[in-house]
Protein backbone atom coordinates (compact mmCIF):
# COMPACT_ATOMS: atom_id res chain seq x y z
CA UNK A 1 0.00 0.00 0.00
CA UNK A 2 1.24 3.50 -0.71
CA UNK A 3 1.73 5.95 2.10
CA UNK A 4 -1.50 7.74 1.19
CA UNK A 5 -3.47 4.48 1.31
CA UNK A 6 -2.03 3.55 4.69
CA UNK A 7 -2.88 6.97 6.12
CA UNK A 8 -6.44 6.52 4.87
CA UNK A 9 -6.55 3.08 6.50
CA UNK A 10 -5.44 4.54 9.83
CA UNK A 11 -8.08 7.28 9.56
CA UNK A 12 -10.73 4.71 8.63
CA UNK A 13 -10.07 2.84 11.89
CA UNK A 14 -10.93 5.95 13.85
CA UNK A 15 -13.96 6.81 11.76
CA UNK A 16 -15.41 3.34 12.26
CA UNK A 17 -15.07 3.91 16.01
CA UNK A 18 -17.09 7.12 15.70
CA UNK A 19 -14.35 9.72 15.56
CA UNK A 20 -14.30 12.72 13.25
CA UNK A 21 -10.97 13.05 11.47
CA UNK A 22 -8.97 16.10 10.51
CA UNK A 23 -5.92 15.63 8.25
CA UNK A 24 -2.92 17.95 8.46
CA UNK A 25 -4.72 20.65 10.46
CA UNK A 26 -3.07 24.04 10.06
CA UNK A 27 -1.14 25.39 13.06
CA UNK A 28 -3.47 27.22 15.39
CA UNK A 29 -6.38 24.87 14.72
CA UNK A 30 -8.32 23.47 17.66
CA UNK A 31 -6.95 26.28 19.87
CA UNK A 32 -3.58 24.57 19.94
CA UNK A 33 -0.54 26.73 20.63
CA UNK A 34 0.78 28.44 17.51
CA UNK A 35 4.23 26.91 17.95
CA UNK A 36 2.89 23.35 17.85
CA UNK A 37 4.14 21.65 14.67
CA UNK A 38 1.66 20.82 11.95
CA UNK A 39 0.01 17.60 13.10
CA UNK A 40 -0.64 14.53 10.97
CA UNK A 41 -4.15 13.70 12.12
CA UNK A 42 -6.53 14.76 14.82
CA UNK A 43 -9.50 12.67 15.84
CA UNK A 44 -12.28 14.21 17.91
CA UNK A 45 -15.76 13.24 19.04
CA UNK A 46 -19.18 14.69 18.52
CA UNK A 47 -18.00 17.55 16.39
CA UNK A 48 -16.61 19.36 19.42
CA UNK A 49 -12.84 19.10 19.57
CA UNK A 50 -12.41 20.90 22.89
CA UNK A 51 -15.55 20.41 25.03
CA UNK A 52 -15.82 22.49 28.14
CA UNK A 53 -16.89 19.44 30.13
CA UNK A 54 -15.05 16.52 28.62
CA UNK A 55 -16.84 13.16 28.74
CA UNK A 56 -15.16 10.07 30.23
CA UNK A 57 -12.32 8.90 28.03
CA UNK A 58 -10.42 11.02 25.57
CA UNK A 59 -12.31 13.70 23.65
CA UNK A 60 -9.44 14.08 21.19
CA UNK A 61 -6.59 11.95 19.91
CA UNK A 62 -3.58 13.44 18.18
CA UNK A 63 -2.07 10.91 15.80
CA UNK A 64 1.59 11.17 14.89
CA UNK A 65 2.75 8.93 12.04
CA UNK A 66 6.41 8.51 12.94
CA UNK A 67 7.83 7.46 9.58
CA UNK A 68 5.67 9.53 7.31
CA UNK A 69 7.25 11.54 4.51
CA UNK A 70 6.99 15.26 5.13
CA UNK A 71 7.69 18.53 3.37
CA UNK A 72 11.07 18.31 4.97
CA UNK A 73 12.54 21.46 3.55
CA UNK A 74 9.61 23.41 4.95
CA UNK A 75 9.56 21.51 8.23
CA UNK A 76 13.24 21.93 9.00
CA UNK A 77 13.97 25.15 7.06
CA UNK A 78 17.09 23.53 5.60
CA UNK A 79 17.67 24.20 1.91
CA UNK A 80 20.05 21.24 1.63
CA UNK A 81 17.23 18.79 2.42
CA UNK A 82 15.14 17.21 -0.30
CA UNK A 83 11.70 18.72 -0.55
CA UNK A 84 9.72 15.65 0.41
CA UNK A 85 11.25 12.90 2.56
CA UNK A 86 11.16 11.18 5.94
CA UNK A 87 12.65 13.19 8.80
CA UNK A 88 15.89 11.84 10.20
CA UNK A 89 15.92 10.62 13.81
CA UNK A 90 17.05 13.86 15.31
CA UNK A 91 14.46 15.93 13.49
CA UNK A 92 11.69 13.45 14.27
CA UNK A 93 12.72 13.44 17.94
CA UNK A 94 12.61 17.23 18.03
CA UNK A 95 9.16 17.21 16.45
CA UNK A 96 7.89 14.71 19.05
CA UNK A 97 9.26 16.82 21.90
CA UNK A 98 7.63 19.96 20.58
CA UNK A 99 4.25 18.21 20.34
CA UNK A 100 4.68 16.72 23.83
CA UNK A 101 5.64 20.06 25.33
CA UNK A 102 2.71 21.81 23.68
CA UNK A 103 0.31 19.15 24.98
CA UNK A 104 1.70 19.49 28.44
CA UNK A 105 1.21 23.25 28.28
CA UNK A 106 -2.46 22.74 27.36
CA UNK A 107 -3.02 20.85 30.62
CA UNK A 108 -5.86 18.78 29.24
CA UNK A 109 -6.05 15.15 30.31
CA UNK A 110 -8.74 14.42 27.74
CA UNK A 111 -6.31 14.73 24.84
CA UNK A 112 -4.49 11.52 23.95
CA UNK A 113 -1.40 11.30 21.81
CA UNK A 114 -0.94 8.18 19.71
CA UNK A 115 2.12 7.24 17.65
CA UNK A 116 1.50 5.12 14.56
CA UNK A 117 3.66 3.71 11.78
CA UNK A 118 3.54 2.93 8.12
CA UNK A 119 4.65 -0.51 7.15
CA UNK A 120 7.28 -1.53 4.65
CA UNK A 121 4.90 -1.45 1.69
CA UNK A 122 5.10 2.36 1.87
CA UNK A 123 8.86 2.03 1.24
CA UNK A 124 8.17 -0.32 -1.63
CA UNK A 125 5.74 2.14 -3.16
CA UNK A 126 8.34 4.87 -2.76
CA UNK A 127 10.92 2.72 -4.58
CA UNK A 128 8.68 3.00 -7.61
CA UNK A 129 9.29 6.70 -8.09
CA UNK A 130 11.85 8.10 -10.49
CA UNK A 131 14.68 10.13 -9.03
CA UNK A 132 17.21 9.69 -11.84
CA UNK A 133 14.99 10.06 -14.83
CA UNK A 134 12.03 12.11 -15.92
CA UNK A 135 9.63 9.87 -17.81
CA UNK A 136 8.32 13.00 -19.51
CA UNK A 137 11.66 13.69 -21.19
CA UNK A 138 11.04 12.29 -24.69
CA UNK A 139 14.67 12.44 -25.84
CA UNK A 140 15.91 10.60 -22.79
CA UNK A 141 13.13 8.07 -23.16
CA UNK A 142 14.03 7.39 -26.80
CA UNK A 143 17.68 6.94 -25.89
CA UNK A 144 16.82 4.55 -23.09
CA UNK A 145 14.60 2.47 -25.38
CA UNK A 146 17.21 2.39 -28.18
CA UNK A 147 19.90 1.34 -25.71
CA UNK A 148 17.61 -1.35 -24.31
CA UNK A 149 16.93 -2.68 -27.77
CA UNK A 150 20.65 -2.79 -28.57
CA UNK A 151 21.42 -4.67 -25.37
CA UNK A 152 18.65 -7.17 -26.04
CA UNK A 153 19.94 -7.71 -29.56
CA UNK A 154 23.38 -8.69 -28.24
CA UNK A 155 23.47 -12.44 -28.75
CA UNK A 156 26.97 -12.87 -27.33
CA UNK A 157 25.70 -13.07 -23.77
CA UNK A 158 24.82 -16.20 -21.87
CA UNK A 159 21.15 -17.09 -21.52
CA UNK A 160 21.07 -16.14 -17.84
CA UNK A 161 22.71 -12.77 -18.52
CA UNK A 162 20.16 -12.08 -21.20
CA UNK A 163 17.34 -13.07 -18.87
CA UNK A 164 18.67 -10.66 -16.26
CA UNK A 165 18.84 -7.90 -18.88
CA UNK A 166 15.29 -8.70 -19.95
CA UNK A 167 13.98 -8.58 -16.38
CA UNK A 168 15.64 -5.28 -15.52
CA UNK A 169 14.46 -3.70 -18.77
CA UNK A 170 10.99 -5.18 -18.31
CA UNK A 171 10.60 -3.67 -14.83
CA UNK A 172 11.90 -0.34 -16.04
CA UNK A 173 9.70 -0.24 -19.13
CA UNK A 174 6.58 -1.10 -17.14
CA UNK A 175 7.38 1.55 -14.59
CA UNK A 176 7.88 4.13 -17.37
CA UNK A 177 4.51 3.19 -18.83
CA UNK A 178 2.93 3.35 -15.40
CA UNK A 179 4.05 6.96 -15.12
CA UNK A 180 3.84 8.17 -18.64
CA UNK A 181 0.61 6.54 -19.60
CA UNK A 182 -1.28 5.73 -16.40
CA UNK A 183 -4.31 4.43 -18.22
CA UNK A 184 -6.62 5.10 -15.31
CA UNK A 185 -8.33 8.20 -14.07
CA UNK A 186 -6.47 8.63 -10.80
CA UNK A 187 -2.98 7.65 -12.00
CA UNK A 188 -2.96 4.61 -9.76
CA UNK A 189 -0.48 2.88 -11.99
CA UNK A 190 2.36 5.19 -11.07
CA UNK A 191 2.90 3.38 -7.79
CA UNK A 192 1.24 0.10 -8.68
CA UNK A 193 3.13 -3.17 -8.66
CA UNK A 194 4.33 -4.70 -11.93
CA UNK A 195 1.50 -7.22 -12.05
CA UNK A 196 -1.07 -4.46 -12.10
CA UNK A 197 0.68 -2.62 -14.93
CA UNK A 198 1.08 -5.88 -16.86
CA UNK A 199 -2.64 -6.52 -16.61
CA UNK A 200 -3.39 -3.02 -17.82
CA UNK A 201 -1.14 -3.49 -20.84
CA UNK A 202 -2.77 -6.81 -21.62
CA UNK A 203 -6.23 -5.24 -21.41
CA UNK A 204 -5.03 -2.51 -23.77
CA UNK A 205 -3.81 -5.10 -26.26
CA UNK A 206 -0.15 -4.05 -26.02
CA UNK A 207 1.10 -7.47 -24.91
CA UNK A 208 -0.20 -10.98 -25.41
CA UNK A 209 0.46 -12.76 -22.11
CA UNK A 210 -2.67 -13.00 -19.96
CA UNK A 211 -2.25 -11.98 -16.31
CA UNK A 212 -2.88 -15.54 -15.14
CA UNK A 213 0.09 -16.76 -17.19
CA UNK A 214 2.26 -13.85 -16.06
CA UNK A 215 1.67 -14.67 -12.38
CA UNK A 216 4.44 -17.30 -12.15
CA UNK A 217 6.86 -15.12 -14.08
CA UNK A 218 6.21 -12.32 -11.64
CA UNK A 219 6.95 -14.64 -8.73
CA UNK A 220 10.28 -15.41 -10.38
CA UNK A 221 11.06 -11.70 -10.73
CA UNK A 222 10.42 -11.22 -7.01
CA UNK A 223 12.53 -14.28 -6.21
CA UNK A 224 15.36 -12.87 -8.31
CA UNK A 225 15.47 -9.59 -6.41
CA UNK A 226 14.95 -11.20 -3.03
CA UNK A 227 17.65 -13.85 -3.44
CA UNK A 228 15.26 -16.75 -3.94
CA UNK A 229 15.10 -19.35 -6.72
CA UNK A 230 13.78 -17.82 -9.94
CA UNK A 231 12.71 -19.92 -12.90
CA UNK A 232 15.05 -18.66 -15.62
CA UNK A 233 13.07 -19.95 -18.63
CA UNK A 234 10.08 -17.92 -17.45
CA UNK A 235 12.21 -14.81 -17.15
CA UNK A 236 13.64 -15.38 -20.63
CA UNK A 237 10.11 -15.72 -22.00
CA UNK A 238 9.44 -12.07 -21.12
CA UNK A 239 11.51 -11.00 -24.12
CA UNK A 240 8.67 -11.28 -26.64
CA UNK A 241 6.34 -9.04 -24.67
CA UNK A 242 9.20 -6.72 -23.81
CA UNK A 243 9.90 -6.09 -27.50
CA UNK A 244 6.22 -5.26 -27.98
CA UNK A 245 6.40 -2.83 -25.08
CA UNK A 246 9.47 -1.10 -26.48
CA UNK A 247 7.69 -0.80 -29.85
CA UNK A 248 4.66 0.55 -28.03
CA UNK A 249 6.64 3.19 -26.13
CA UNK A 250 8.43 4.28 -29.27
CA UNK A 251 5.31 4.43 -31.43
CA UNK A 252 3.17 5.97 -28.72
CA UNK A 253 5.45 8.80 -27.80
CA UNK A 254 8.02 9.09 -30.51
CA UNK A 255 6.14 8.95 -33.81
CA UNK A 256 8.72 10.60 -36.07
CA UNK A 257 11.50 8.40 -34.82
CA UNK A 258 9.26 5.36 -35.06
CA UNK A 259 9.10 5.72 -38.82
CA UNK A 260 12.87 5.37 -39.07
CA UNK A 261 13.31 2.71 -36.38
CA UNK A 262 10.47 0.32 -37.08
CA UNK A 263 10.23 -1.65 -40.33
CA UNK A 264 8.33 -0.10 -43.19
CA UNK A 265 5.00 -1.81 -43.60
CA UNK A 266 3.25 -1.96 -46.93
CA UNK A 267 0.09 0.10 -46.58
CA UNK A 268 -3.04 -0.72 -48.50
CA UNK A 269 -4.36 1.91 -50.94
CA UNK A 270 -6.79 4.29 -49.32
CA UNK A 271 -10.40 3.55 -50.09
CA UNK A 272 -12.46 6.65 -49.41
CA UNK A 273 -15.72 4.78 -49.49
CA UNK A 274 -14.41 2.40 -46.88
CA UNK A 275 -13.37 5.37 -44.72
CA UNK A 276 -16.83 6.80 -44.92
CA UNK A 277 -18.20 3.46 -43.78
CA UNK A 278 -15.67 3.27 -40.98
CA UNK A 279 -15.61 6.70 -39.33
CA UNK A 280 -18.94 8.30 -40.10
CA UNK A 281 -21.16 5.71 -38.37
CA UNK A 282 -18.78 5.93 -35.43
CA UNK A 283 -19.18 9.69 -35.29
CA UNK A 284 -22.96 9.36 -35.37
CA UNK A 285 -22.98 6.83 -32.58
CA UNK A 286 -20.65 8.92 -30.43
CA UNK A 287 -23.31 11.61 -30.45
CA UNK A 288 -25.54 9.23 -28.46
CA UNK A 289 -23.16 9.00 -25.51
CA UNK A 290 -24.86 10.73 -22.63
CA UNK A 291 -21.82 11.55 -20.52
CA UNK A 292 -20.48 14.76 -22.00
CA UNK A 293 -16.78 14.50 -21.02
CA UNK A 294 -16.56 11.01 -22.49
CA UNK A 295 -18.39 12.10 -25.66
CA UNK A 296 -16.10 15.08 -26.09
CA UNK A 297 -12.90 13.14 -25.52
CA UNK A 298 -14.03 10.29 -27.77
CA UNK A 299 -14.87 12.76 -30.55
CA UNK A 300 -11.37 14.26 -30.35
CA UNK A 301 -9.87 10.79 -30.44
CA UNK A 302 -11.95 9.87 -33.44
CA UNK A 303 -10.45 12.87 -35.24
CA UNK A 304 -7.00 11.57 -34.30
CA UNK A 305 -7.93 8.15 -35.66
CA UNK A 306 -8.79 9.71 -39.02
CA UNK A 307 -5.50 11.62 -39.06
CA UNK A 308 -3.38 8.61 -38.14
CA UNK A 309 -5.13 6.26 -40.55
CA UNK A 310 -2.59 4.25 -42.58
CA UNK A 311 0.25 5.18 -40.18
CA UNK A 312 1.87 3.14 -37.38
CA UNK A 313 0.32 5.54 -34.86
CA UNK A 314 -3.17 4.35 -35.76
CA UNK A 315 -2.88 1.35 -33.49
CA UNK A 316 -2.17 3.41 -30.38
CA UNK A 317 -4.82 5.96 -31.29
CA UNK A 318 -7.27 3.06 -31.46
CA UNK A 319 -6.16 1.76 -28.06
CA UNK A 320 -6.73 5.21 -26.53
CA UNK A 321 -10.13 5.43 -28.18
CA UNK A 322 -11.21 2.01 -26.92
CA UNK A 323 -10.19 2.93 -23.39
CA UNK A 324 -12.18 6.14 -23.50
CA UNK A 325 -15.37 4.43 -24.60
CA UNK A 326 -14.80 1.30 -22.49
CA UNK A 327 -17.94 1.99 -20.44
CA UNK A 328 -20.03 2.09 -23.65
CA UNK A 329 -18.18 -0.69 -25.43
CA UNK A 330 -21.28 -2.77 -26.13
CA UNK A 331 -22.71 -0.07 -28.40
CA UNK A 332 -19.54 0.13 -30.47
CA UNK A 333 -18.34 -3.47 -30.64
CA UNK A 334 -19.25 -4.02 -34.28
CA UNK A 335 -17.50 -0.84 -35.45
CA UNK A 336 -14.52 -1.47 -33.18
CA UNK A 337 -14.07 -4.86 -34.82
CA UNK A 338 -13.71 -3.13 -38.19
CA UNK A 339 -11.19 -0.67 -36.74
CA UNK A 340 -9.13 -3.48 -35.27
CA UNK A 341 -9.00 -5.24 -38.60
CA UNK A 342 -7.90 -2.01 -40.19
CA UNK A 343 -5.17 -1.68 -37.58
CA UNK A 344 -3.94 -5.20 -38.38
CA UNK A 345 -3.85 -4.37 -42.08
CA UNK A 346 -1.74 -1.29 -41.39
CA UNK A 347 0.67 -3.28 -39.26
CA UNK A 348 0.93 -5.93 -41.94
CA UNK A 349 -0.17 -8.67 -39.56
Amino acid at each position, binding site marked *: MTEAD*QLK*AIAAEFRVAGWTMSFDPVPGSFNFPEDMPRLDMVAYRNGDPMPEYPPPGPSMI*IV*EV*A*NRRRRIRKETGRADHPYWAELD*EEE*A*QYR*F*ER*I*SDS*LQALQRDDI*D*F*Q*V*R*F*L*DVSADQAEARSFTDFSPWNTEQLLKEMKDARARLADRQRTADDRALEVVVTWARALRILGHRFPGRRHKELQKADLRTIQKDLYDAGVIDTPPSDYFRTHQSILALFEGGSPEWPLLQSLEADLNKIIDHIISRFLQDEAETITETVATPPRDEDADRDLFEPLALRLGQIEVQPIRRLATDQLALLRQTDLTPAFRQALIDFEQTISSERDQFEDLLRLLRERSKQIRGV
Partner: protein
Amino acid sequence: MRPAPTVRRHEFMVKGSPVSVNRYGHSQYRNWRSTVYSASIPTPPTWSGSLFAGECSVRIRYFRVRDRIKDVDNILKAILDALDGKISGSIRHADSVITDDRRVELVMSQRTNLGLGARIDGRRLRRQEYAALLHARRGQAAVYVGVHNAPDHGVSISR
Protein backbone atom coordinates in the same frame (compact mmCIF):
# COMPACT_ATOMS: atom_id res chain seq x y z
CA MET B 1 35.41 11.15 44.75
CA ARG B 2 32.51 13.16 43.44
CA PRO B 3 29.28 11.95 45.15
CA ALA B 4 26.45 10.79 42.95
CA PRO B 5 23.67 13.38 42.71
CA THR B 6 20.24 12.56 44.14
CA VAL B 7 18.24 11.24 41.22
CA ARG B 8 14.88 9.69 40.68
CA ARG B 9 15.42 8.55 37.08
CA HIS B 10 18.19 7.77 34.61
CA GLU B 11 17.29 6.90 31.02
CA PHE B 12 19.12 6.09 27.87
CA MET B 13 18.71 4.41 24.54
CA VAL B 14 20.85 1.65 23.06
CA LYS B 15 21.06 1.23 19.31
CA GLY B 16 21.05 -2.32 18.05
CA SER B 17 19.59 -5.69 18.72
CA PRO B 18 19.67 -7.06 22.30
CA VAL B 19 21.54 -10.29 22.84
CA SER B 20 19.95 -13.18 24.67
CA VAL B 21 21.42 -14.71 27.82
CA ASN B 22 21.63 -17.93 25.82
CA ARG B 23 24.67 -16.36 24.14
CA TYR B 24 26.43 -15.88 27.49
CA GLY B 25 30.16 -16.44 27.07
CA HIS B 26 30.13 -15.52 23.39
CA SER B 27 31.79 -12.38 22.10
CA GLN B 28 28.38 -11.23 20.82
CA TYR B 29 27.10 -11.13 24.43
CA ARG B 30 30.17 -9.29 25.69
CA ASN B 31 29.99 -6.77 22.86
CA TRP B 32 26.33 -6.06 23.53
CA ARG B 33 26.94 -5.68 27.25
CA SER B 34 29.76 -3.28 26.47
CA THR B 35 27.50 -1.31 24.12
CA VAL B 36 24.83 -1.00 26.80
CA TYR B 37 27.40 0.10 29.34
CA SER B 38 28.79 2.79 27.00
CA ALA B 39 25.28 4.09 26.35
CA SER B 40 24.47 4.15 30.08
CA ILE B 41 27.30 6.47 31.07
CA PRO B 42 27.06 10.00 29.65
CA THR B 43 30.07 11.54 27.98
CA PRO B 44 31.64 13.16 29.94
CA PRO B 45 30.44 11.27 33.02
CA THR B 46 28.36 13.36 35.40
CA TRP B 47 29.06 11.16 38.41
CA SER B 48 31.62 8.76 39.71
CA GLY B 49 30.94 5.50 41.46
CA SER B 50 27.36 4.23 41.25
CA LEU B 51 24.47 6.52 40.34
CA PHE B 52 21.89 4.52 42.30
CA ALA B 53 23.51 3.49 45.55
CA GLY B 54 20.52 1.64 46.93
CA GLU B 55 17.47 -0.20 45.73
CA CYS B 56 16.07 0.67 42.34
CA SER B 57 13.72 -0.36 39.53
CA VAL B 58 14.61 -0.98 35.91
CA ARG B 59 12.35 -0.63 32.92
CA ILE B 60 13.42 -2.04 29.57
CA ARG B 61 11.60 -1.61 26.30
CA TYR B 62 12.80 -3.48 23.27
CA PHE B 63 11.55 -2.06 19.98
CA ARG B 64 11.88 -4.25 16.93
CA VAL B 65 10.88 -4.11 13.30
CA ARG B 66 12.40 -7.04 11.43
CA ASP B 67 14.88 -8.12 14.08
CA ARG B 68 14.88 -11.78 15.03
CA ILE B 69 12.61 -11.96 18.06
CA LYS B 70 14.27 -12.21 21.49
CA ASP B 71 12.40 -13.30 24.59
CA VAL B 72 11.72 -10.45 26.99
CA ASP B 73 13.24 -12.40 29.89
CA ASN B 74 16.35 -13.47 28.02
CA ILE B 75 17.43 -9.92 27.21
CA LEU B 76 17.51 -8.87 30.88
CA LYS B 77 20.80 -10.31 32.04
CA ALA B 78 23.12 -8.52 29.65
CA ILE B 79 21.43 -5.19 30.34
CA LEU B 80 21.46 -5.60 34.11
CA ASP B 81 25.10 -6.68 33.98
CA ALA B 82 25.92 -3.56 31.98
CA LEU B 83 24.07 -1.33 34.45
CA ASP B 84 26.13 -3.00 37.15
CA GLY B 85 29.31 -2.12 35.22
CA LYS B 86 30.37 -5.74 34.84
CA ILE B 87 33.24 -6.36 32.45
CA SER B 88 33.78 -10.05 33.11
CA GLY B 89 33.37 -12.30 36.14
CA SER B 90 33.78 -10.09 39.20
CA ILE B 91 35.66 -7.36 37.35
CA ARG B 92 33.68 -4.16 37.14
CA HIS B 93 34.03 -0.65 35.78
CA ALA B 94 34.65 2.04 38.36
CA ASP B 95 31.54 3.96 37.34
CA SER B 96 28.16 2.40 36.83
CA VAL B 97 24.46 3.14 37.03
CA ILE B 98 23.62 0.71 39.83
CA THR B 99 25.69 -0.66 42.69
CA ASP B 100 24.69 -4.26 42.37
CA ASP B 101 22.05 -5.99 40.30
CA ARG B 102 20.87 -7.62 43.54
CA ARG B 103 19.60 -4.18 44.51
CA VAL B 104 17.15 -4.17 41.60
CA GLU B 105 13.75 -4.78 43.18
CA LEU B 106 11.54 -4.37 40.14
CA VAL B 107 12.22 -5.12 36.50
CA MET B 108 9.82 -4.53 33.69
CA SER B 109 10.73 -5.87 30.28
CA GLN B 110 8.56 -5.14 27.27
CA ARG B 111 8.87 -5.90 23.60
CA THR B 112 7.08 -3.74 21.05
CA ASN B 113 6.80 -4.72 17.40
CA LEU B 114 6.58 -1.67 15.18
CA GLY B 115 4.39 -1.92 12.14
CA LEU B 116 1.17 -0.69 10.63
CA GLY B 117 -0.90 -2.09 13.49
CA ALA B 118 1.26 -0.74 16.33
CA ARG B 119 -0.27 1.97 18.50
CA ILE B 120 1.99 3.65 21.00
CA ASP B 121 0.69 5.96 23.71
CA GLY B 122 2.66 9.11 23.07
CA ARG B 123 1.71 10.78 26.36
CA ARG B 124 3.39 8.04 28.35
CA LEU B 125 6.37 7.78 26.04
CA ARG B 126 9.62 9.01 27.48
CA ARG B 127 11.88 11.02 25.21
CA GLN B 128 14.59 8.37 25.17
CA GLU B 129 11.92 5.78 24.53
CA TYR B 130 10.82 7.65 21.45
CA ALA B 131 14.43 7.93 20.36
CA ALA B 132 14.74 4.13 20.63
CA LEU B 133 11.53 3.72 18.67
CA LEU B 134 12.79 5.99 15.89
CA HIS B 135 16.09 4.18 15.68
CA ALA B 136 14.37 0.80 15.56
CA ARG B 137 12.40 1.97 12.53
CA ARG B 138 15.64 2.38 10.59
CA GLY B 139 18.03 0.00 12.32
CA GLN B 140 15.58 -2.86 12.93
CA ALA B 141 15.95 -2.81 16.73
CA ALA B 142 16.78 -0.58 19.67
CA VAL B 143 16.34 -0.73 23.43
CA TYR B 144 15.20 1.87 25.92
CA VAL B 145 16.46 1.50 29.49
CA GLY B 146 15.10 3.51 32.38
CA VAL B 147 16.38 3.17 35.92
CA HIS B 148 14.22 4.62 38.70
CA ASN B 149 14.04 4.65 42.44
CA ALA B 150 12.88 1.50 44.13
CA PRO B 151 9.17 0.75 44.06
CA ASP B 152 6.98 1.76 46.95
CA HIS B 153 6.14 -1.54 48.60
CA GLY B 154 3.16 0.05 50.26
CA VAL B 155 1.49 0.01 46.83
CA SER B 156 0.75 -3.27 45.10
CA ILE B 157 2.18 -3.43 41.61
CA SER B 158 -0.86 -5.35 40.44
CA ARG B 159 -3.07 -2.27 40.76
